[in-house]
């Protein structure tokens, strides 16, 4: 009996009996569609790629465990996953605050500058990204969150409004203020 069960699982991995052993189809398509978005959002908020991978894994594990409780009438899957991601990032940052610095060192940003063609430009761009990200971590949490949704997850204002459950105008105002505060921090750091 035991051996029979093992064989069933094994063949499931080879493509037969898949329904029993593979992810639920809905979840699988959400994963395909939204995992890169969740990762980018998380990566924008966290200092290292390793931490971003860990937190992204945690997000989807939590989502999988809570799948039965997901209510499509209350939020789209994307909004739901982003909500889990926001909570996971908050928990992670709270943990790190007790443990260590949140600052990004230059050797931790190569995965963020992959589109710059020459080595010299990569270095300069890396330094600039380091400055921007470290500056953003001096902002209050709500500012960091809205900037991460826009520049990390790549959301438009309408999607940010849905994710934060606020109006489009409120998004524009908050973004404007967050950018202004970020610029003030960046300028101050540039002067120091």
């Amino acid at each position, binding site marked *: 009996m035991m051996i029979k069960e093992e064989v069933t699982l094994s063949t499931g991995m080879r493509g037969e009996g898949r329904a029993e052993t593979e*992810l639920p189809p809905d979840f699988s398509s959400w994963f395909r569609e939204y995992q890169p978005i969740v990762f980018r959002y998380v990566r924008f908020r966290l200092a290292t790629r390793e931490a971003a991978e860990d937190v992204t894994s945690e997000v989807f594990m939590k989502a999988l465990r809570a799948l039965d409780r997901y209510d499509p009438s209350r939020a789209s899957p994307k909004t739901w996953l982003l909500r889990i991601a926001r909570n996971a990032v908050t928990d992670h940052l709270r943990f790190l605050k007790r443990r260590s610095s949140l600052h990004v060192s230059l050797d931790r940003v190569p995965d963020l500058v992959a589109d710059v063609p020459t080595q010299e430009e990569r270095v300069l761009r890396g330094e600039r990204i380091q400055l921007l990200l470290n500056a953003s971590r001096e902002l209050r949490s709500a500012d960091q969150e809205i900037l991460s949704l826009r*520049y990390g997850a*790549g959301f*438009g204002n309408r999607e940010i409004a849905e994710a934060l459950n606020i109006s489009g105008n409120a998004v524009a105002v908050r973004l404007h203020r967050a950018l202004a505060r970020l610029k003030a921090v960046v300028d101050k750091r540039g002067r120091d």
Partner: protein
Amino acid sequence: MTNPNDPHDADFRATLPADLQALDRELSGIRIEERPSFGPELKGELTQAWRTRARGAPMASRPWVRTLMAAGLAGLMIAGVSVPSARAAVFQLVRTVAEEVFPTFFAQDAEPELQLPEIEAQEPAPPVAPRPRAEVVVSPADASNEVVTSMPDLPTLPFVETTFPEIISRQEAARMIASYYPLELQEAGVEGAIKLLFWVDTHGIPENIQTRESSGNQRLDYAAMRAARNLRFHPATRNGVAVGTWVEVDFHFFALTGVGIIGSDSMDSVM
């Protein structure tokens, strides 16, 4: 990265002063490059978690079921002893159980058990149901044909030269595994050992990675599984021909050094 078709975006950017527009463009230009294998690895972990959940806890592991089964068995034994015709069968059953539990008591009249090395299939076979370790694991020493030739009544098997999978570079492997040790676990002093079982194919690439013994920390287990996918082996060979085989590998994560290493003496092949 922002959505250019979103009217809010066009309106929004236009409302920003020039210096903030420049900052907006600069931030939008940050490209986040995901490790290519991260998505598939995570999907594998999710699938395994789902599979475990789908299987659920076996009925026998529930305490009330175990109690009920024990009570039922005791009842059957008492009934059996009280019926003369069934008494001999019950005593035979008790003896069989006792032989399993206290084998040394019965060792002198027990016949030597023949152990033959298992012959592995070319394709990954499903892992066998848990059995005593000595029956499942064939160490290199056990795999020689000494056991076979000591049994005169059996036909002599042809000599088979077998090699077992070897990690190509243990130093590189240790460095690679260390890179998967989550920083916050290191900082929190969370350590652990994980035993993984996986198939090493004829190209030396791990497949079908499964947790054999958990560290007790899910994130450490996942770190080990991710690292295992990137291990590379010299494949096992049989008479000089590369063959796939199951291997068990221990992963150790030590917080003091921040280095995750493979126990150098703990790699067993399960063929």
